[in-house]
């Protein structure tokens, strides 16, 4: 049902839409501006605008950057198969549990903890774990655990899992909300195992949410800086290269181009997900309407 007030003057409604669009524009303005400058041959502050792809060519011929892209992709590839099943299990646990408050607290509070604070705590935690395992090694003679928590890919992945899990949980929860559990119960009554009922009945219906969560994890991995830079050890990620360039030499034209690549990829992926989801929801609503009112 539409909640629009027919008696409200049209100009007031337009004014409110204007305010909303203005807010979206302001939030997106830094991104638009970055992209705009990245195509200017003369860079920021120039009086004239000469369109060019030169800065993008420079970025793609930068070996350090290509290496950093590879490392970031690797982090995303390792994080994905761990965090997605965790997210699925957490969402299912939340739906079935009577202790919802604790689950919500543990899963969503990482959203509220500032990146620098969590990263500092994890950094000291990993260093202490290493010392603990070294001590155990000295007593037991088992030294294989000594270097497990040295700063590197594993610690960076753990940081990313803690960071991305709340997002995965919420996205999957939203899609799971539409799923009726009676379907799983019916499948189980007909003799399907719990796994088969999940894989053949529930998963196809929440697939869109799971794929969206995967896209979010990749985007968040590429966007994340603070946790990864403190926990990654020796290698460079996309954002750490970007930040070191920005802080050391200021925003160069290549920095604008790099930032634009990351932003545009994220915006395109998210927009594609949103459009596909909107089309599918529309189709589903149309089908429901046809079933409910076949003569209309």
């Amino acid at each position, binding site marked *: 049902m539409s909640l*629009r007030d027919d008696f409200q003057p049209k100009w007031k409604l337009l004014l409110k839409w204007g305010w909303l669009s203005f807010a979206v524009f302001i939030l997106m303005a830094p991104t638009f501006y970055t992209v705009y400058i990245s195509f200017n041959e003369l860079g920021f502050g120039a009086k004239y605008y000469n369109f060019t792809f030169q800065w993008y060519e420079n970025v793609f011929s930068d070996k350090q950057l290509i290496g950093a892209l590879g490392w970031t992709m690797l982090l995303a590839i390792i994080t994905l198969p761990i965090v997605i099943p965790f997210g699925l299990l957490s969402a299912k646990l939340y739906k079935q549990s009577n202790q919802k408050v604790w689950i*919500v607290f*543990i*899963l969503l509070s990482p959203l509220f903890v*500032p990146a*620098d*604070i969590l990263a500092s705590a994890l950094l000291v*935690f990993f260093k202490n774990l290493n010392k603990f395992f070294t001590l155990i090694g000295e007593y037991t003679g088992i030294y294989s655990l000594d270097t497990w928590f040295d700063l590197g890919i594993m610690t960076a992945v753990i940081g990313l899992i803690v960071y991305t899990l709340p997002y995965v949980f919420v996205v999957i929860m939203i899609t799971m909300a539409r799923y009726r559990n009676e379907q799983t119960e019916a499948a189980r009554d007909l003799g399907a195992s719990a796994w088969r009922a999940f894989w053949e009945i529930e998963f196809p219906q929440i697939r869109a949410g799971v794929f969206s969560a995967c896209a979010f994890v990749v985007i968040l991995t590429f966007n994340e800086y603070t946790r990864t830079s403190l926990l990654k050890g020796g290698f460079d990620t996309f954002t750490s290269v970007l930040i070191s360039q920005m802080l050391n030499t200021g925003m160069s034209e290549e*920095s604008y181009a790099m930032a634009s690549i990351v932003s545009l990829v994220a915006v395109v992926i*998210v927009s594609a997900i949103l459009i596909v989801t909107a089309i599918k929801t529309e189709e589903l609503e149309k089908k429901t309407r046809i079933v409910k009112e076949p003569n209309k």
Partner: protein
Amino acid sequence: MIIFFVLPLLLTVVWSVFERTMFWMEPAFTLFSYENFFFSSRLENFLSSMFHSSISVVCAFFIGFPIAIFIRRRVKQVAQHRVMLLFILPFMVSEIIRIFALRPILSRNGVVNSFLMDMNLIDSPFSIFVFTPTGVVIGEIVSFLPFMIFSTFLALEAIPNYIFEVCADLGVNRRRMFKDIFLPLAAPGLFAGSVFIFVNGIGIALIPTILGGPGSVNAGLIATQAIIALDFPLAMAVSAIMMFTLMGLLYLGHRLFNLTKLLEPIS
């Protein structure tokens, strides 16, 4: 999550009372790190970042809450989520890029000043937009506003439509509707959004580093600077203070508004 999130945060309390050594720390019980924090200019910086975050919360409320109400009340129900998704796009662009790009936009020769001068609204460019507390507040609003809109919309979504219809039938005016319907029923969302902005405002080092200038220091920056200076107990003391601030606020919010209500529309 218990091992790699709850435990490290809880252990910050233990590590914060350890004694600092040359490159690390050793088990002891000393409150030196807390003294170092509370009896120095760090406390002043922390309180001032709290003040700036509070301003950001108020601004985000005045900008974001009307938008959430508008989407809930005036947009067709089938389109509400789609309009909300518009606010996901900026959230998906790296915060670092958004914050960094604000520098050239707000600087003396940036887009905003150029626009205002071209329109003959000002004679000389403003220099208060960057490297000042105003810059920090602008950065916080641009970074965190979507969260205020999401959380308040989520709370408003739980209000059944018939309440609006009953109010319309009874001729309830807008002011009363705002005071007696929107404000109390959106309270969990408003609280969650405010806590998010407040805590991240005092905890994310990047915004004061890039937009705040030399005097702008918050808890996140104190912690990262302490780690760079190898003063791990101080970094942990700051983390523990932040953790207690956050937990205290979340507990208070849960007692007052039952924050789990926020997840009802999606569970």
